[in-house]
């Protein structure tokens, strides 16, 4: 049996770990609230832009733009959103596993796909496996501004425009609730899955100067906004996942401390009992 001193040491160190995980849990909880708020702020923009894009796409029969048309797929782009830091439970591993399996099952050579990563964990994962990472961005703040990711979003869309990739998928964790996040796969380009069911009262627009030029401006902006939306969603999920992971770490620490305290008390009691037995034994020997 471990000595009293050993057990006491373990209790102290577990208590310290618990303090840290507890603090991280609370930090993540507040970050999650703000990230959730950001994601909510973004909703009006995304709804509006989607509405306009789909009404243009369905409205004018002659609207054509490379981004609206599927072409033969020679190379696929995968945009993977992970976090920069770990300690977030299965947040990163589940998404990386999904992407990895997807790539393994769909592609036989590295020329058929390319990866764009947001977050350090994702970048390192694919680099280590010698998979082509075309672009990466790390150190995105917890409350990202659109300006922070504008470059990578527009460069990614540019890859498609330059026909260096022929379709683009995005993988991220969708924030369902504070305890549930879902790995989500979404096809961003080409924009063939637009919701073209007309909503009541939707008007057909005049285009100034003309439809093509509008689409020229609108579609890249729309694709970029989808990427930004996914990032906000993923940030909220990241903090939620970290919060849950830290909460269970704190709970585990509590349990461990409970067990250790019990064995500490037992050991202490055993020591006392032994002392008494020795004294009684000594006294009996004198009689």
């Amino acid at each position, binding site marked *: 049996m471990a000595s009293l001193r050993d057990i006491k040491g373990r209790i102290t160190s577990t208590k310290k770990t618990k303090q840290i995980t507890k603090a991280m849990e609370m930090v993540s909880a507040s970050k999650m609230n703000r990230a959730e708020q950001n994601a909510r702020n973004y909703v009006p*923009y995304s709804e*509006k832009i989607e509405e306009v894009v789909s009404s243009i796409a369905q409205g004018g029969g002659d609207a054509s733009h490379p981004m609206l048309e599927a072409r033969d797929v020679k190379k696929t782009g995968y945009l993977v959103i992970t976090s920069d830091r770990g300690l977030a439970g299965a947040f990163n591993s589940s998404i990386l596993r999904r992407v990895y399996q997807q790539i393994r099952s769909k592609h036989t050579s590295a020329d058929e796909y390319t990866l764009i990563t947001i977050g350090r964990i994702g970048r390192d994962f694919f680099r280590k496996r010698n998979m082509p990472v075309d672009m990466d961005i790390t150190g995105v703040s917890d409350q990202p501004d*659109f300006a922070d990711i*504008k470059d990578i979003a527009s460069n990614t869309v540019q890859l498609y425009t330059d026909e260096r990739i022929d379709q683009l998928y995005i993988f991220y964790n969708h924030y369902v609730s504070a305890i549930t996040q879902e790995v989500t796969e979404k096809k961003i380009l080409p924009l063939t899955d637009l919701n073209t069911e007309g909503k009541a009262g939707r008007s057909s*627009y005049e285009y*100034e100067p003309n439809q093509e*030029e*509008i689409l020229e401006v*609108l579609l890249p902006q729309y694709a970029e*906004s989808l990427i930004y939306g996914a990032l906000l969603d993923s940030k909220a999920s990241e903090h939620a996942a970290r919060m849950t992971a830290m909460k269970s770490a704190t709970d585990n620490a509590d349990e461990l401390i409970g067990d250790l305290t019990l064995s500490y008390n037992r050991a202490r009691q055993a020591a006392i009992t032994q002392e008494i037995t020795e004294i009684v034994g000594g006294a009996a020997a004198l009689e």
Partner: protein
Amino acid sequence: MSTLTVSVVTPDGPVLEDAFEMVSCKAESGELGVLPGHIPMVAPLTISAVRLKGEGRSERIAVSGGFLEVRPDKVTILAQSAEKPTDIDADRARMAKERAERRLQDKQADIDFQRAEMALKRAINRLDVIENNF
């Protein structure tokens, strides 16, 4: 007098939503004025100031690109960034302007001219919007 509901939305959240009588802005094809009852329209905007006029008041908003969606009773401006004069960081805009100017003057082959030019335009636009208000 009839009014238009104007909302300015960016990815970082709504910037403004209020009733105004007239919207004037600079679209890619030229200056554009919108009054209530306008035919539904979509037009891309340049990096410019959007001017909103209401009962005895007017507002200016610096927008960086984006586009304008018009309905008879509603105008929506969707931009990647849009700021009211009070939200603009003048020092930052001034610094951005100087930086962009330096880049353009350097004439090094490896800099992205287009980007520097856009950055310069945005900075000048922001400064214009502030100065016209004070």
